[in-house]
């Protein structure tokens, strides 16, 4: 384990996701403690003091988001767990949904208590089948046990919880698009301000937090914010579930304590690159986070400060390790095809820009590229920046500019020679990958 774990603290078995075993691990004790000894504001205070940042990608301080909600302002408040997990490279929330669904439920009950929430939602991507069945079964267990849907521990606090399943739209992972989707409409993101904590679901104050972020709430209440802050670094308290994939020997979900050395994580915990290859590039937190070169990664530690300084971000914790010998031009083509496919079409710069960038990269890969195409890609990215309602167009642009900045020679080579410098290879060492 890369550092102290907070979430992956038990061996996963065929039954470890069930209520009885969650209780045996101390589950729902934090809920009882909060409901019987703490005021709602105390819960928010603890979460704020813990200094936890959002784990979905934007790293927004959770306490600051929650503080906007006034629990007794006479209107309904809603809570939504974002389980849309669509950022390519990211599959960490799935680990929680499949293996520890009650931790999410307990945490949502705690958050609901703190924020005065009567109705809460989990918005889960529609493709997730096992995670959906596991969480739905856990919700039914929690209803039967009286945690959900009934007044809790002699208080008047009651919360209902339902899962709403998405249906294949990446943009619905963006908090306002997610709420629009829960309202039963096309998942168009909304202009901010007003913030969602002021006008969210059906125009009521709403907190949307990532599944992993929320799951930490039960941990924080159980151990106290002071003990929580002992894990991680001063500016990035706690841990991150890192889902690492690509050309590493041991891909999977790892809980990484903030501050852990990145190289150690990749080469020791994940077994290094397949075939002993060199690390060519690392997409650190979903493909919207700027790519780093192998050299960039050498001295980094896994925390927000370190990655910000390197010009990238931890993002969603979806790490993709790219080995020497991979064609970065074709990799960017895969990414731009994705963004073009997923642009919701609401804002002109993104709708037109993604298609334009996709056509340019197709042209380059097809051997018809022009040298000015490289700067054109950068120009479209720049023109997109800050001109759209949600961040998707921006992120696609940053990622594109990042690829070009780090691997410009490959783009130039491709255009000059009408072929890839690396034979167009994406799947390096195919014969070395043991398909278990």
């Amino acid at each position, binding site marked *: 384990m890369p550092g102290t774990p907070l979430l992956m603290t038990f061996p996963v078995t065929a039954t470890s996701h069930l209520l009885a075993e969650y209780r045996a691990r101390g589950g729902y004790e934090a809920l009882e403690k909060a409901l019987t000894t703490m005021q709602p504001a105390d819960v928010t205070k603890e979460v704020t003091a813990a200094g936890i940042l959002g784990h979905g990608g934007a790293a927004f301080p959770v306490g600051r988001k929650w503080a906007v909600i006034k629990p007794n302002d006479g209107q*309904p408040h809603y809570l939504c767990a974002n389980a849309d*997990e*669509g*950022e*390519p*490279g*990211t*599959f960490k929330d*799935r680990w929680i949904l499949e293996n520890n669904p009650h931790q999410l439920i307990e945490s949502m009950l705690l958050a609901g208590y703190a924020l005065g929430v*009567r*109705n809460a939602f989990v918005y889960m*991507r*529609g*493709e*997730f*089948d*096992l995670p959906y069945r596991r969480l739905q079964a856990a919700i039914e267990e929690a209803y039967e046990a009286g945690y959900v849907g009934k007044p809790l521990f002699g208080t008047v606090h009651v919360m*209902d*919880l*339902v899962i*709403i*399943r*998405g*249906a*294949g*739209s*990446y943009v619905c992972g963006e908090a306002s698009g997610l709420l629009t*989707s*829960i309202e*039963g*409409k*096309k*998942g168009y993101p909304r202009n901010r301000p007003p913030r969602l904590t002021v006008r969210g679901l059906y125009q009521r104050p709403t907190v949307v937090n990532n599944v992993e972020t929320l799951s930490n709430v039960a941990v924080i209440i159980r151990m106290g914010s002071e003990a929580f802050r002992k894990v991680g670094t001063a500016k990035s308290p706690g841990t991150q579930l890192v*889902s*690492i*994939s*690509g*050309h590493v020997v041991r*891909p*999977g979900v790892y809980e990484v304590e903030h501050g852990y050395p990145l190289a150690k994580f990749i080469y020791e915990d994940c077994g290094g690159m397949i075939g002993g290859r060199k690390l060519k590039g690392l*997409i650190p937190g979903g*493909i919207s986070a700027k790519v780093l070169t192998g050299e960039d990664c050498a001295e980094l530690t896994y925390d927000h400060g370190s990655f910000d300084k390197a010009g990238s971000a931890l993002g969603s914790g*979806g790490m*993709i390790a*790219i080995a020497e010998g*991979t064609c970065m031009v074709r*990799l960017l083509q*895969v*990414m731009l*095809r*994705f963004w073009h*496919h*997923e642009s*919701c079409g609401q804002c002109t710069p993104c709708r037109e820009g993604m298609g334009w960038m996709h056509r340019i990269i197709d042209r380059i890969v097809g051997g018809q590229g022009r040298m000015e195409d490289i700067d054109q890609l950068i120009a479209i990215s720049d023109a997109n920046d800050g001109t759209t309602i949600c961040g998707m167009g921006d992120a696609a642009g940053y990622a594109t500019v990042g690829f070009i900045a780090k691997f410009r020679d490959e783009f130039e080579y491709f255009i000059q020679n009408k072929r890839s410098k690396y034979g167009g290879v*994406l*799947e390096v060492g*195919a014969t070395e*990958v043991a*398909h*278990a």
Partner: protein
Amino acid sequence: MSAVLMPVVEGLIPEFEALKKRLPPNFESTLVMPCLHRVQAVRGYVADEDIVDLVKYLGVPRMQIEQVLSYYTMFRRKPIGRWHLQACRNVTCSMRGSERLVDALSRRLGIKPGETTADGRFTLSEVECLGSCGTAPVVMVNEAYHENLSTEKLDELLGRLS
């Protein structure tokens, strides 16, 4: 509720009512997505009569349901093959062999992505990230993820699908 409904939606009403009890009052619009999911699971796609029924049952405008159906890629307005093979083509899967996998699938089934075999058994689709990158490449067969796929494992899998 006195409107006359056709069998598919009619049969699902108890389920929808149970879900409604866990939602705040006047959240009918929120039921649009769950209802469409269930209708599609039962029928295999969403038919015109289902839209008419859901308009009656939920009291939302028909246009809203049509918009949702055309916006979300998972909803279908037409039947497809008995086995829907959805191969991820995103970053990690392509780094772990999804392009070879899709080629092999295409050859084996004699169809291109987006098509259905003449006998109605298989529909092949290419999709974006399924959130299964640690076990790439992944192909969804109806609801189930099949992970760490190789062409050999895929051949074996296809043999089991009737």
